[in-house]
C-alpha cells in the first residue's frame, strides 16, 4: 500500500510486547504491537524510553528488524553486561508488558527496492539489525525486482553462536543473486573455512565487488568498524555519497 509520509509530531506511545524470542545467547527479539503504527522503511529505528518509579529515565535507540509491511514491530536487542537498558529489555521484559517507544525514525540510513542496487551490506555485531530489515524487504520483492538487484552481505561476529539470524541468513543466501559472507573474529567451529579475522581492506577487496558497479553500500555496527570500513571503501573507489553509515557506539 503506497502512501506519503505526512509531516507531523513524533509522539511517545506505549507499545505492548506480544512476543519475545532469543536469537543468540546474547541477543533477543522483542515483538511489539505499536498503536496506530504508520509502517516503516527498512533501516529506520525507534527510540525506547524507560521511566522508573523514582522518576529516573533512560532512553536508547533500537533499529527495527522487521520488514516494512509487517503490522508488528520487531526489535533485536543485544545484551550488554552491566549496561542500563539492554539487560532490562532482554531479561525483565516479557509478553504483556508495556514499552514506551517513538518512531519510526530515520530517512538517511534507509533502503527500499525502488532505490535499486546493487546492494552491499556490511554489519558488525548488532549492526546486522537494520540490514536484516533491508534483507527481509528484499526477500519479499518480486523475482523480477530481485533479479535486477544483486545483494552481498559481509557480517562480522565474535563466534558462530553470536551470529544473529544465522539460519535465516543461510536461507537468504540460497536466493539467486544473494551472497552472504561471515567473518568470525574470536572463535570458529570445527571445519570452518570462512573468514577468521576483523574486516580489513583485503577482505573488502575480495567481497565488495568492483566500485565501478556503483553499489549502494550500508555499513552498520560498532563505531570503529563503521569508520574503518567506510574509509577503506572510499579508498577502493566507492563514491562516498553511496556509502551510508550508522554508528552504534563503542559496543554493538
Amino acid at each position: 500500500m503506497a502512501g506519503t509520509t505526512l509531516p507531523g509530531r513524533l509522539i511517545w506511545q506505549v507499545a505492548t510486547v506480544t512476543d519475545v524470542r532469543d536469537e543468540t545467547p546474547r541477543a533477543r527479539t522483542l515483538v511489539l504491537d505499536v498503536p496506530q503504527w504508520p509502517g516503516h522503511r527498512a533501516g529506520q529505528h525507534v527510540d525506547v524510553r524507560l521511566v522508573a518509579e523514582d522518576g529516573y529515565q533512560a532512553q536508547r535507540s533500537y533499529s527495527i528488524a522487521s520488514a516494512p509491511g509487517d503490522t508488528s514491530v520487531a526489535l533485536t536487542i543485544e545484551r550488554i553486561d552491566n549496561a542500563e537498558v539492554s539487560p532490562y529489555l532482554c531479561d525483565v521484559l516479557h509478553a504483556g508488558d508495556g514499552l514506551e517507544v517513538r518512531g519510526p525514525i530515520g530517512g538517511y540510513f534507509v533502503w527500499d527496492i525502488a532505490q535499486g542496487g546493487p546492494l552491499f551490506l556490511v554489519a558488525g555485531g548488532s549492526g546486522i539489525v537494520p540490514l536484516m530489515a533491508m534483507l527481509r524487504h528484499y526477500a519479499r520483492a518480486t523475482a523480477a525486482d530481485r533479479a535486477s538487484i544483486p545483494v552481498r552481505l559481509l557480517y562480522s561476529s565474535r563466534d558462530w553462536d553470536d551470529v544473529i539470524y544465522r539460519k535465516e541468513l543461510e536461507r537468504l543466501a540460497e536466493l539467486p543473486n544473494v551472497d552472504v559472507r561471515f567473518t568470525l573474529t574470536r572463535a570458529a567451529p570445527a571445519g570452518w573455512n570462512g573468514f577468521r579475522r576483523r574486516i580489513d581492506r583485503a577482505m573488502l577487496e575480495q567481497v565488495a565487488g568492483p566500485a565501478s558497479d556503483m553499489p549502494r553500500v550500508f555499513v552498520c555496527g560498532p563505531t570503529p568498524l563503521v569508520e574503518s570500513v567506510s574509509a577503506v571503501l572510499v579508498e577502493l573507489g566507492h563514491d562516498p555519497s553511496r556509502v551510508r553509515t550508522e554508528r552504534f557506539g563503542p559496543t554493538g
Partner: protein
Amino acid sequence: MADKPFIARGFHSHRAAAPAGRLPPGQYETRDFPVLSAGPTPRTPLATWDFVIRDSAGHSVRWSWDELHALPRDTPTVDIHCVTKWSKFDTRWEGVSIDTLLDGARAAGVRVGGYVLAFCDGGYTTNLPIADVTGAKAWVAFGYDGVPLPPEHGGPARMLVPHLYFWKSAKWVRGLQLLDRDQPGFWEQLGYHDRGDPWREQRYQGD
C-alpha cells in the same frame, strides 16, 4: 495538564546504592569512569602546550608544560559528579591549584575579576564564578590514578573542579580568561547552569 509518565515495570537504575550523604540528589554511583566529550580528542604536543591566564585588558601570563610542572602540586582525592547522573567516589588526581596559578597571574599584573571562562583545545569553554575556583577547590590536573592523565579523560591537562558538576572540569584546558561579567560557555549557552552545584541540583539555568 501533565500526562502521567508510563512506568516501565521492574525498571530501576542498576547502579549501586551508596552511603547516605555521599551522593548528591538524583545521582547514582558508578565504578566506571565514563568518557563524555563534546568533540574529538585534541592532540597537542607538549612542546607547544601552554597554559595562559589573561584579563580583558590584554595582560597575560603563561606557563609551558615544564613550567607548570615546576610549580607546587597537590594530589587531591575527590568524588566527582556528572550531570548525566553518575558519580564516582575517591578519584585520585595530581595537579596545580588554581590558587597557585592566580597568584602567579596577579604577580604578573593580570587583574582577577569575578568570573573565569576556561578555554580548551577543540574550542570547548565553561564559565565559573571566581569563588568556585579559589580556596583550594580547583586545579589544573595532569595526573589521574597515579599516571599521566590519558587523552580521553582530558590529557595532557584538564580543569578539576570536583565540587561542581563535572562538565565544569573542562578537558584539554589551555587557559583561563578572567572576566568581570559572567559569560556562558559551551554547555551553558545551551541551557546548562552557570554554576552547577550538584548539592543544589543546579543542572540547568533557572534551577
